[in-house]
């Protein structure tokens, strides 16, 4: 079957897999199967990031995301965040369990010194320990909530990111539960983002992968707003080099070499995870996932 070819837009969003595939947790639904032992992608250093930042500056990149694995495992994380914040806004995607009071205080200082926003996105998959820990491991709910509270105390408004591991009918109940629980812990105006599940990595083993017909065909792209897809305007950099998006870091088809500029080429949407993007839009960005882009052109 021929895959739909996505013409590239401008590089607006640059991701860094700073935490590689290493994580202090080993969630059952992790779409890149991260764990304390998975070293298939190692941690990144500031020195490794620098050349990409130089390229990103020349390309006019608009925003930066740091992910893993767990970014807070990276010793240099503070230096990396401070460095990138000189050049643009930064979002750190974390499980929150390693965010201490002292760390939150230092990040608040770093953020106060620059005009650009520093966001934390904390993954929590249920509004109580029972539902969250079943997926993210014993004790992770309490630790993550403490991390959230530490960030809130320092003036951050972390975005709580929950993967939709519950049945869609329960959306309202779960969202309400999150708001109640977060407010009870001192987070008066919680920000919440619900992510669809990506049926790859550990999640594939948990619930079974995609069905054969769950793919993007060229016909499906007719009249579809390509700007909805993250890979239209984003790239991911790991220790290995440039990948098409944060979702396909472990998929060899997602590897696009070592130059950002040269990575902005038409890309075949042949992976099955692409199907989830197709349905939900730019699921990985902080912004709402259904913002329709009205291209006016230069």
């Amino acid at each position, binding site marked *: 079957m021929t895959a739909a070819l996505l013409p590239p837009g*401008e590089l*607006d969003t640059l991701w860094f897999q700073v935490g590689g595939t290493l994580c202090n947790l080993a969630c059952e639904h992790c779409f890149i199967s991260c764990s304390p032992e998975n070293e298939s992608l190692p941690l990144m250093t500031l020195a490794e990031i620098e050349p990409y930042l130089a390229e*990103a*500056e*020349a*390309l*006019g*990149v*608009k*925003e930066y995301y740091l992910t893993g694995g767990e970014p807070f495992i990276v010793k240099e994380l503070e230096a990396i965040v401070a460095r990138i914040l000189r*050049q*643009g*806004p930064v979002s750190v995607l974390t499980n929150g369990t390693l965010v201490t009071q002292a760390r939150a205080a230092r990040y608040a200082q770093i*953020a106060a010194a620059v*005009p*650009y*926003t*520093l*966001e934390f996105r904390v993954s929590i998959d249920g509004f109580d320990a029972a539902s969250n820990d079943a997926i993210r491991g014993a004790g992770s709910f309490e630790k993550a909530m403490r991390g959230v509270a530490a960030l809130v105390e320092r*003036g*951050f*408004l972390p*975005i709580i990111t929950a993967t939709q591991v519950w049945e869609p009918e329960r959306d*309202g109940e779960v*969202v309400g539960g999150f708001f109640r629980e977060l407010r009870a812990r001192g987070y008066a*105006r919680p*920000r919440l*983002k*619900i992510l669809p599940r990506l049926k790859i990595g550990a999640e594939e083993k948990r619930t079974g992968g995609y069905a054969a017909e769950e793919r993007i065909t060229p016909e499906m792209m007719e009249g579809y707003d390509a700007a909805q897809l993250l890979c239209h305007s984003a790239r991911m950099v790991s220790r290995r080099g440039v990948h098409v998006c944060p979702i396909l870091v472990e998929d060899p088809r997602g590897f696009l070499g070592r130059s950002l500029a040269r990575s902005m080429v038409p890309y075949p949407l042949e992976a099955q995870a692409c199907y989830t993007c197709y349905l939900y839009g730019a699921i990985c960005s902080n*912004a*709402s*996932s*259904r*913002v*329709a*882009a*009205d*291209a*006016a*052109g*230069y």
Partner: protein
Amino acid sequence: MAAPGDAKERERARAALIGGVYSNHVALAEVLADARRRGIEECYCLGDLGAFGPHPDRVFPILLDYRVRVVQGNYDHSIGNRRDDCACGYTDPRDNHFARLSYRYTFDRTSDRWKDWLRDLPVRLDFSLGGKRVHLCHGSPRRTNEFLWESTTPDPFLRKLFAATGADVIACTHTGLHWQRELEDKLFVNAGVIGRPENDGTTEVGYTIIEAAPERAAGVRAEHVRVAYDHARLAAEMREENLPAEFIATIETGWWTSCLEILPGKERARGRF
């Protein structure tokens, strides 16, 4: 755009830039009167005439009366093209509910004649001011509904926009919060909006005056001007029209109460909700 050598063109040294109106005809009249008192003749509106406020048809005669030139906003595009929603794309169900309500209201009360007018607005306007090229757009030069917040619009990205447009000054609105940044010999301006206060706990709104300034690297300077208007009157009209209490609260208190999810953390932290 006036032809080079046009006398009017040479004279132009100041212009008023007015951001989203959101049907706030009371503020619009006040802002334009303020600009006139200052002797400013050239007024531009950066789009989003409807939404949020009451009686959408009331803004058009005022705009025409003052001969304001208007750029098309995302809302204008949706209403003008008879779309079924504003394409704001909020994910919070409460925001979505309010967005739909106010879109319906605005859509139903905008006459066909003005819908056509909105549909035909240009997505950009270019003119020269003190010999500098000014580019007006709604969200960004490349996308009508792109949000350019101060804390999420880095210098390298702005440089790209300046290179792509060839402009010396770029001005937009769409976010609701004004800011400006000088960058080498360029000037970027978000003119803010006059439709609702800037989430700062005051009821005033603001617009931006740009002015030729040869002493500046960009050759143009921007000043944000705050204007008090009869917000109680607007609130009363909104009540009569049964518009959401949350929207009225924003007009009366100066704090945004809905659609907060679009704000970056840095901007949101400054507000109350």
